[in-house]
């Protein structure tokens, strides 16, 4: 399957979309660009500590709501589209802590409506977020926070290798990639390499996401560019710097999108 078919068939307008990777590492950037090229709308995007992937989708007007613990370009500065659209109140904010995002996804994976966690008390994040409520444990009375499940319609993930059945190997940090695949109704994965079924069967302990969770597989070398992909390549910091510069204005971002997304063949 190619990018066009995977996104065209499995991402619908209005979907809740979980996006793998962390910071500028192993974001499914080729999939992100295809979502933008296909002009998907009203998405609810979900991730823990995100960067350019979230910022591009928001800037390209694909996003209705954003669930996050942090969105930034690290040392290259604020994620400007994220900043602008929220300041103009064009995107709904669902601000979390890392652990509450994880818990919302864990609840979805388990098929339950919420998960109780500790921490969060007395933070204004808890006060403003309607998807968290203070509760008491029915057994011990312990004061806890119930975090409402976030059920992704689709998870977008980039990984290292897979056989053609979609048994995925991720070399390196798991981030939330596995959890997202387990929590989502559908999962689209791009990989650097296609392996033989024999190779997978020889080392089953290397499979991080078995095929049962995978809806679509796309062979897409450098599918995480300009973010990093462990043993294959590091993040393209010069490009991320260029992106940070370009997104200082909306016009700059439009030019960036034309050049690096709409005119890019992949």
């Amino acid at each position, binding site marked *: 399957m190619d990018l066009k078919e995977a996104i065209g068939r499995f991402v619908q307008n209005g979907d809740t979309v979980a996006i793998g990777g962390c910071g500028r590492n192993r974001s499914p950037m080729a999939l992100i660009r295809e979502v933008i090229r296909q002009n998907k709308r009203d998405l609810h995007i979900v991730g823990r500590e995100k960067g350019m992937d979230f910022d591009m989708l928001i800037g390209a007007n694909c996003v209705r709501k954003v669930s996050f613990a942090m969105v930034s370009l690290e040392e290259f500065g604020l994620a400007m589209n994220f900043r602008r659209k929220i300041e103009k109140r064009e995107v709904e904010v669902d601000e979390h*802590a890392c652990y509450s995002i994880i818990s919302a996804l864990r609840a979805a994976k388990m098929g339950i409506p919420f998960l109780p966690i500790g921490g969060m008390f*007395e933070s204004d994040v808890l006060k403003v977020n309607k998807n968290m409520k203070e509760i008491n444990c029915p057994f011990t009375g312990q004061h806890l926070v119930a975090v409402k499940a976030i059920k992704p319609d689709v998870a977008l993930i980039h990984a290292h290798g897979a056989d053609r059945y979609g048994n995925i190997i991720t070399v390196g940090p798991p981030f939330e990639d596995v959890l997202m695949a387990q929590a989502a109704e559908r999962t689209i994965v791009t990989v650097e390499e296609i392996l033989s079924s024999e190779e997978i069967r020889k080392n089953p302990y290397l499979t991080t996401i078995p095929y049962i969770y995978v809806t679509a597989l796309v062979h897409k070398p450098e599918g995480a560019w300009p973010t990093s992909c462990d043993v294959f390549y590091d993040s393209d910091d010069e490009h991320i710097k260029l992106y940070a510069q370009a997104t200082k204005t909306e016009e700059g971002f439009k030019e960036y999108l034309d050049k690096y997304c709409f005119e890019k063949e992949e």
Partner: protein
Amino acid sequence: MVSIAELMITCMAREIADGDMVLQGLYSPMPMIACLLAKNFHAPNMVYFNTADTIDPEPDFVPFSTAGPKLEERAVAYIPLSDVFDLAQRKKIDLIFLGAAQIDRYGNTNLSVIGDYKKPKVRLPGGAATAHLCAIIPTIIWIPNHNRRVFVEKLDFITGQGYLKGGQERKIKGLDGGPKKVITNLCVLNFDEETKKMRIESIHPGVELKEVIENTGFDLIIPENLKVTKLPTERELKFIEKIDPHKVRNIEFTKR
């Protein structure tokens, strides 16, 4: 000549005790180097967790992204951050280093918005693990730009829980952990045991007390015997230079 980054890194490293379980987050260049420094010097038995999801990596040099693949080198295991947060919830993590866009006298921090939450003047990146962990484990806050826009009388939003309104409020509200120190480019700060108001612990060499006062938007407690921050040793400096040949440590001070 010791740079301010090197001094702040050594201050952070000295807060790590041998055997501590310590977490370093995303966009945390100085804490990353501080963890490696501590582990190679006074805290060989500390456990070093990081946002590249690894335990005890031994990179030959540090990456710019503090979740970058370099932090996987010679690690003993991968551990998803979700598991580290599970440990924190069980009070098994001893320390995390956190940043702040604004901080008040009780160590409450803001990483969310400047202005009204619903119609912010500036939407900031968000606190990452802050709102969860500040309620349950000890934290060290580092601030590379000690000035009145950061050290404010009143926060626009409390992302990270410090000592709330001071005194025993944090305890009464049932929170554990809390901010131990604030390490800035001018000084090291701690909190008065009774009032929980911020107090100067030591001032960095070459910094005047006046400078600290003028750059803080509230009154600090000034101890009678004002100490000067201990400089890194030659060996520590050599280690920092070796582990950080690309000067990742300076990225919070100078644009890349």
